[in-house]
């Protein structure tokens, strides 16, 4: 149970995931830059970046949620709700600093709801968030009342498009968030506790970790990040519609898992999440550039996810071809 070489290999494979992903990203860049002369243009890379911002931020939160052994299929809608808050704030003509704060505020609040239902209501995360998904959707419909927030004031857009020192502001924000998350995971007790709780809740509790608090905080953090993503969304698209964020949850889970964070918890790879999101977005962009219809994109996402995970299991010797034995949790 304890010292099997398989688990050792697993640990190594986790470290290797970032390298593999990096190689995958480089290969993608290489292939697409050969296939399309426009792929490597600065403008195109900027487009990829711009279209990755929200998923990168939400994926960061999802990394924490998966790391504690949870899951949240409602994060996209949390961003949607946050975007409504930000949009209404813009329409109400609130000062910009307040508008920027409202996103994370809404997100944190909703994160608290999600976290409470899961942690204090003791409902399995997947069940709770499926339920909340329905409730949040209804809330979005009720809040928007059938009309979109469109053509919003440009104040936030100017902010989102700022490029201090030549670097787009969203890039700076994302780097800061990831750096912060890294410090949190690596250099604070909270980070250790997240990993311990994700690995084995009962043992973490025996070791004196405040398990509930850690789990709750992870959902809170994820909610807050969704709120930050909402600010970016409203600033970028100046539009909030019914479906804002609806497809984002599963995309985020796919990207984060592709990045090597285990859905069983106890393992978090921030670099992996970053690379996973970028790889997915690059593929979508590249396929459009070489003329593959956009309808194929979700096929690509699915196949890539499966291929990566199968490859990993093959390399780590997890697949016993000789007999069918184990199922999965």
């Amino acid at each position, binding site marked *: 149970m304890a010292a099997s070489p398989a688990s050792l290999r697993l640990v190594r494979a986790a470290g290797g995931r970032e390298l593999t992903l990096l190689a995958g990203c480089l290969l993608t860049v290489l292939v697409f830059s050969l296939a399309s002369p426009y792929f490597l243009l600065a403008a195109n890379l900027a487009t990829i970046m711009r279209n990755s911002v929200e998923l990168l931020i939400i994926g960061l939160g999802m990394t924490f949620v998966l790391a504690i052994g949870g899951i949240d299929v409602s994060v996209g809608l949390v961003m949607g709700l946050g975007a409504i808050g930000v949009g209404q704030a813009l329409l109400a003509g609130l000062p910009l600093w307040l508008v920027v704060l409202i996103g994370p505020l809404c997100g944190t609040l909703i994160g608290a709801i999600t976290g409470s239902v899961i942690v204090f209501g003791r409902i399995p995360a997947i*069940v709770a968030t499926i*339920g909340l998904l329905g409730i949040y959707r209804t809330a979005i419909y009720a809040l928007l009342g059938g009309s979109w927030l469109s053509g919003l004031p440009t104040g936030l857009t100017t902010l989102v498009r700022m490029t201090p020192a030549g670097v787009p502001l969203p890039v700076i924000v994302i780097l800061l968030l990831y750096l912060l998350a890294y410090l949190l995971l690596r250099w604070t007790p909270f980070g250790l506790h997240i990993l311990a709780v994700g690995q084995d809740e009962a043992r973490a509790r025996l070791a004196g970790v405040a398990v509930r608090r850690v789990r709750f905080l992870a959902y809170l953090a994820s909610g807050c990040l969704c709120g930050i993503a909402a600010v970016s969304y409203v600033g970028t698209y100046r539009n909030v519609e019914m479906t804002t964020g609806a497809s984002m949850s599963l995309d985020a889970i796919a990207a984060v898992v592709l990045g090597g964070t285990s859905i069983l918890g106890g393992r978090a790879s921030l670099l992996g999440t970053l690379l996973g999101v970028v790889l997915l977005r690059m593929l979508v962009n590249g396929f459009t550039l070489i003329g593959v219809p956009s*309808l194929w994109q979700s096929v690509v996402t699915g196949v890539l996810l499966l291929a990566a995970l199968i490859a990993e299991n093959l390399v780590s010797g997890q697949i016993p071809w000789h007999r069918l034995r184990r199922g999965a949790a």
Partner: protein
Amino acid sequence: MKNPHHRSLLLLATLWLVMLLIFVLIRPAILQLSMAESVLHFSSMLALVGLGQALLILSGAGMDISVGGMVSLTAILTMMAVQAGVPAALIPLLALVIGLCLGLVNGVLVISCRLLSLIATLGTMFAYGGLALALTGGATVSGVPGWLLPWGRGTLLGIPAHFLTTVMPAYLIAAAVLALTPLGRWILAMGNNERSARLVGIPVGRIRFILYGVSGLLSGLAALISLAWFGSGRPDIGTNMELESLAAVLLGGVAIAGGRGGVGGVLAAVLLVVGLQAGLQYLNISSSWQLGVVGLLLILALLSDRLPWRFAKRV
């Protein structure tokens, strides 16, 4: 009420009554035969998909979120095959076989390749659903022969024909297998405690593999109903079915970790969800409310599961 499964059935029955009562109080005209008939009509596909989902979850194999994609892709592939020259008489067989194969792909991924079920089926959800759209460009594929339509649209003994001929037998068989056969006991045992099930020699992997096939088969059946109903293959017919079926299964009292629950509750939950939807529509309330109500019910149902337990523990 020692048996938690009975408890959740009681809960569903109560919810049903409460719902019916509210609706009838507001619009007595809602009590009409055609209403019941259309609820059954719209329940069929969800009930079948939910059954596969329920069996998988009961066995502890985890959830299958590719069911919607399987239904769409099966419908599309079946009709594409017909357009490519396969005799239309083979449509029922074709739909079942394609569904089965897609389900078994999930089985291979989870059991043989040892992917976590949630992730494996997330991948196939993207792949199946995406393929259905990509292969057709979003257009429907027509060519369903006329003789299939009465089955999809008509009624037998006042019950929608497809409900009578698929859902009822499927649930009866599933309930009988779970209650009366060793296989049924095994499924519940391995869902309850996988390790000890293995120790006593239950072929856990093989059974789960078969159940993935069953889930695919039922999705294929749902796809067949959609063909007979609409008269064409639709690439988006399974949209949202993964979450709807999961909600129904969980609302039906099946424990997400497996081993606890039964299929009767699932059918009751499907009828509750569809009935709620129909009732709200009858009152001309935006169907967006239905999502929230189902979500709320789901959470409340699980909270109610917790409360007495927690209460008892404190004493």
